[in-house]
């Protein structure tokens, strides 16, 4: 490219470029190894018979899965977690949809304050939200309930739902809704038959993502849930005791659940883009 480079210098340059490119690629792989090592490790050692997980591996076993299968506390925690994450997903996505539509269609005074109110919760450290929620819920006499966790998680996850649905609305032609009004549809009917169907993939994506976030959240759940432990709270309490390989087994199941949820959420999110480009 450069004007006055000599042939051999150019060759040197190319070789350096080649080396640089490949060491960068190798570096990216190292980062991925670091990010996914703990996940892979947990899965492998959930099938390892040694009490203390180290290498070399001992024999293959399902012992830890049998232990947790027989443990009523684990069942209880999974039941609680499912109730919490399903309810949270429904509430947060509903709130997120309302907000996204408002932001898409309306301009009004104090709109930036409105948006700040909606979008700020995820930027506040969870431990602070946990303390604030604990104090507030005991003040209004609602602490230690499963639905206190649900309410807190909805506050936390609604912004994610709002963002996903808002991005989808960005791709909707404004005239689509006007066309429906012109053809005699009321605003409610246009919403039901035009806007809502258009947003469906994003709504599904938001449902799965908010469920995943709620399923994994432990700080607020730990402070607010009282005796109704969710899975992450149970893990937190087991881990405080000692190293127990059954955590790897529970952890593997948790990974499986939340990774599936996040991947489904992403697939719906990307599906949307592809369909629009067609």
């Amino acid at each position, binding site marked *: 490219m450069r004007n006055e480079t000599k042939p051999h210098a150019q060759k040197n340059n190319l070789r350096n470029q080649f080396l640089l490119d490949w060491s960068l690629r190798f570096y990216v792989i190292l980062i991925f190894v670091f990010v996914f090592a703990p996940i892979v*490790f947990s899965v492998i050692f959930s099938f390892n018979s040694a009490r203390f997980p180290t290498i070399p591996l001992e024999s293959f076993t399902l012992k830890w899965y049998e232990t947790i299968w027989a443990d009523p506390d684990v069942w209880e925690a999974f039941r609680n977690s499912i109730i919490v994450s399903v309810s949270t997903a429904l509430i947060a996505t509903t709130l997120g949809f309302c907000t996204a539509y408002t932001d898409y269609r309306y301009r009004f005074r104090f709109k930036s304050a409105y948006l700040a109110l909606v979008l700020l919760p995820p930027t506040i450290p969870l431990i602070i939200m946990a303390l604030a929620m604990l104090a507030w819920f005991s003040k209004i006499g609602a602490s230690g309930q499963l639905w206190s966790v649900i309410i807190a998680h909805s506050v936390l996850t609604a912004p994610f739902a709002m963002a996903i649905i808002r991005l989808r609305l960005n791709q909707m032609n404004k005239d689509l809704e006007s066309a429906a009004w012109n053809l005699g549809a009321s605003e409610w009917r246009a919403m039901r038959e035009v806007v809502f169907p258009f947003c469906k993939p994003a709504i599904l994506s938001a449902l799965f993502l908010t469920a995943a976030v709620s399923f994994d959240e432990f700080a607020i759940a730990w402070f607010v849930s009282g005796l109704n432990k969710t899975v992450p709270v149970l893990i937190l309490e087991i881990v405080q005791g000692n190293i127990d390989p059954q955590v790897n087994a529970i952890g593997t199941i948790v990974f499986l659940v939340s990774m599936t949820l996040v991947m489904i959420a992403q697939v719906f999110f990307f599906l949307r883009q592809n369909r629009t480009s067609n």
Partner: protein
Amino acid sequence: MTSRDPLTHQVANKPTRKLFDSFALSWRLPIIVWQTLFFLGPLIFMVAMSFFLVKNYRMQEAFEFVNWSKMFSRNYFWDSYFLTFTLATLSTAIASLLAFPASFALAFKVSPAVRRWALFLLIIPFFTSYLVRIFSWYVILAESGALNALLDTFGLGPYTMLNTKFGTLVGYMTLTLPLVVVLQTFALSNIDRNLVQAAHNLGCSPFRSIYAVIMPLAKTGLIVAALFCFILSFGDFVSPYYLGGSKPPTLPILIIDTTKSGQQWPRAAVVAVVMMVTLITIAFAALALAYRTRASR
């Protein structure tokens, strides 16, 4: 209402601006009510709580500065504060540096398909059980853990990695690195390639073009990524507790200790308010830096 093309203005059914628009309000109000009750309410109450009194293990509503003066006069509070601040700053610097080459490669050196897949994969861990990943690190980094066993086969170690700052930072990286790479990659991908190519054509070396062209152009995104990293590290209690040994405790651990064992909610609220003020200050400073227009040279 938004301006539409002239045709639609003549239609009878066009929604008009009303004093009381029930349709508009039914989309606007739910989140206002919800966040006021369960987001603003708790936060304001927490600030108020920092002035309450505790007598005979019961909280009394009051307006006293006892908790503030108690906390501010304790050395352990300031030790915690500076430790937490230092660790979060270190974490931000390390994560930004570690992430940059990877983000650079993902933005400039791979095909769009590879980039999409890489981002797809990196978003997964951000939403995936942080707690279990930290437990995993706990076992990997232990004295007789997997990493030391691996190093032993090379005749190295054993190293003490748990209950050290190194351990804490590994935990922080687990939490923040995927997010920082994702945000940096977005920032770098949005740069106009022609500008980079122009610098190259004008004889700018690759390293100089990173410093003089790419980083200034991606400044906002890079700073926002660093800001998120700082906020996450500053507020995390799991890594410093399980991997760092919590001696001395960081501020989030202090909140847990004073809340769970001491029943001293008002003092925990003091810590929380101090954290909030710190984070708000940092956030404004970072955003001012991020959006400052560069002085022309």
